[in-house]
């Protein structure tokens, strides 16, 4: 029952994490992070049902709000860097190293 949702959540999280690792485009990377957050939401909701209180569901709402705020900030940053470099590849930005 809830196990499936948890597995799905785990899969989503893993996919998100993997996406962050393998995608170059900053937007996609960022979307993968959002995917991870949503995996969390799914887990919260599932657990909410499993443990039998509503906290998890409330948390999911909070997370959505935070994620939205993150999008705002994130896109602003990515756009700025795109405008400067004419590239949204995260690998291109590697002046800071060693």
């Amino acid at each position, binding site marked *: 029952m809830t196990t499936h949702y*948890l597995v799905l*959540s785990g899969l989503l*999280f893993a996919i*998100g*994490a993997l996406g*962050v690792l393998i995608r170059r485009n*900053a937007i996609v*990377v*960022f979307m993968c*992070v959002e995917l*991870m*957050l949503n*995996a*969390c939401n799914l*887990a*919260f909701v*599932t*657990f*909410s049902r*499993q*443990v*039998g*209180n509503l*906290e*998890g569901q*409330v*948390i999911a709402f*909070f*997370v959505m709000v*935070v994620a939205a*705020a*993150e999008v705002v*900030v*994130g896109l*602003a*940053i*990515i*756009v*700025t*860097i795109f*405008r*400067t*470099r004419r590239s949204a590849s*995260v690998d291109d*930005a*590697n*002046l*800071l*190293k060693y």
Partner: protein
Amino acid sequence: MNTIPAPTIEYGTLAPLLVVFGAAIIGVLVEAFAPRYLRKAIHVPLTLLSLFGAFALVLVQVLRGQVATTASAMGAVAVDGPSLFIWGVILVLSFVCVLLINDEGHFVASAAAVPGSADEEEAEAEGGGGHTEVYPLVLFAVGGMLLFPAAHDLLMMFVALEVMSLPLYLLCGLARRRRLLSQEASMKYFLLGAFSSAFFLYGTAMIYGYAGTVSLPGINEALAKGSGLDPLLMLGLALLGVGLLFKIGAAPFHAWKPDVYQGAPTPITALMASGTLVAAVGAVLRVFWVGLGNLDWNWRPIIWGVAALTMIVGSILAITQTDIKRMLAYSSIAHAGFLLVGVMATFGTAAQNAVSLKAILFYLAVYSITTVGAFAVVTLVRDPGGEAGHLSRWAGLGKRSPMLAGVFAFFLLAFAGIPLTSGFFGKYAVFAAALNSGTQPGDSMGGWMAGLVVVGVVASAIAAFFYVRVIVLMFFSEPAADGPAIAVPSTGTVAVIAVSLLVTVGVGLYPESLLGVANDAAHSLFIR
């Protein structure tokens, strides 16, 4: 139907928090409605006053002896002794950092403008003073920092984490010079920060699944009942740890630190290196003591390894750095390791916990204030292209500007933990707490604690090398012909450096002043 009980909010207790957030919101309004030429004139007093006011409110609580003994805001926020101490420290630090931020020329006029474009020139000509959004953003970040260590449940902690981090992501990208580096720092910090907070959140979810609550005391209770070996719990604990350790920059989650510290505008670096670290360590302490106190058998070996690794990685990698801010970033990593040694010691009886807590609080206070001072000095050493980051440009500074170089050398000695500086007593306090905890009856990790302290000592010795190297450069090398210029410091910067110096020297000579406060704070312990 059940009636939803009206939440109780302890306004008095939470007042410092509310003042800061309130001021931040007013700042946004100012940004939206006030004419451009007025904005700075409003922002600066508003920001400083709100921080000062919040600090005053903290003081009032402490001096009136009204430190809360139960969690406030329906168990969401715990304004206990350690929280108040941390708040005080963060407020002082942010006040000081605002003075630095206030200085001309650190921030770009228009973040959106492409570097070198006509837009940028226009914005420069028009705005002159740079982004005034900086002020409300800083206030939000400070608010997040205040909330982060005080959060009494994991959700509040997550929200605080984001409130603290999101403005900082932006602030990192606002440097006026070396825009590319700044933007890159911003992006890296953002992506990695978001990545790690996803881990934090997923960990929270797992723990929620295990304990049925995200409230820290609730978790602890559940642990007391349960076997404590649930994979769900372990996974949750690990992922939660990732998020927290990321924020304090412990190895192997430290990679963002050097890049971000180097790229960000120096005043922001100062804020991150001091305020964020303090807040994050506070949060770590709270999570481990309040939330996972019954699980110390499990997490202490892990923290042992992380602490040792962090100290060594930070010290060793700093040796070959050539950029001063980057070097200080690695130094900050090493210091995070030393702090973790203290965290190791927070377990068991309340008395032992208080000793360790006192040590860490003291360490945090002295280290962060010295850090701010050091970065303030960094802002003054200039090249035609901005700050002279490369270490080779610092050669012979002692001859050009003996005062400044002397002060910086003193800060470095404090970082190295030479006696008669504040840093020494910080290091001593933490090591002493660690050894002391090792002798607690029945602690199977006693020998390990001594071992960790020896690792810390070795790391200190290695770390001393790169601090000393800078002193060698400044004092024992001949200045380059076209050496860096020393910017005429503004009153604000002078004040920052003076305050840092005063604290570093004062606490170095008479640590009891600050130790007493830390002691009182620690003795009231975290609300469990």
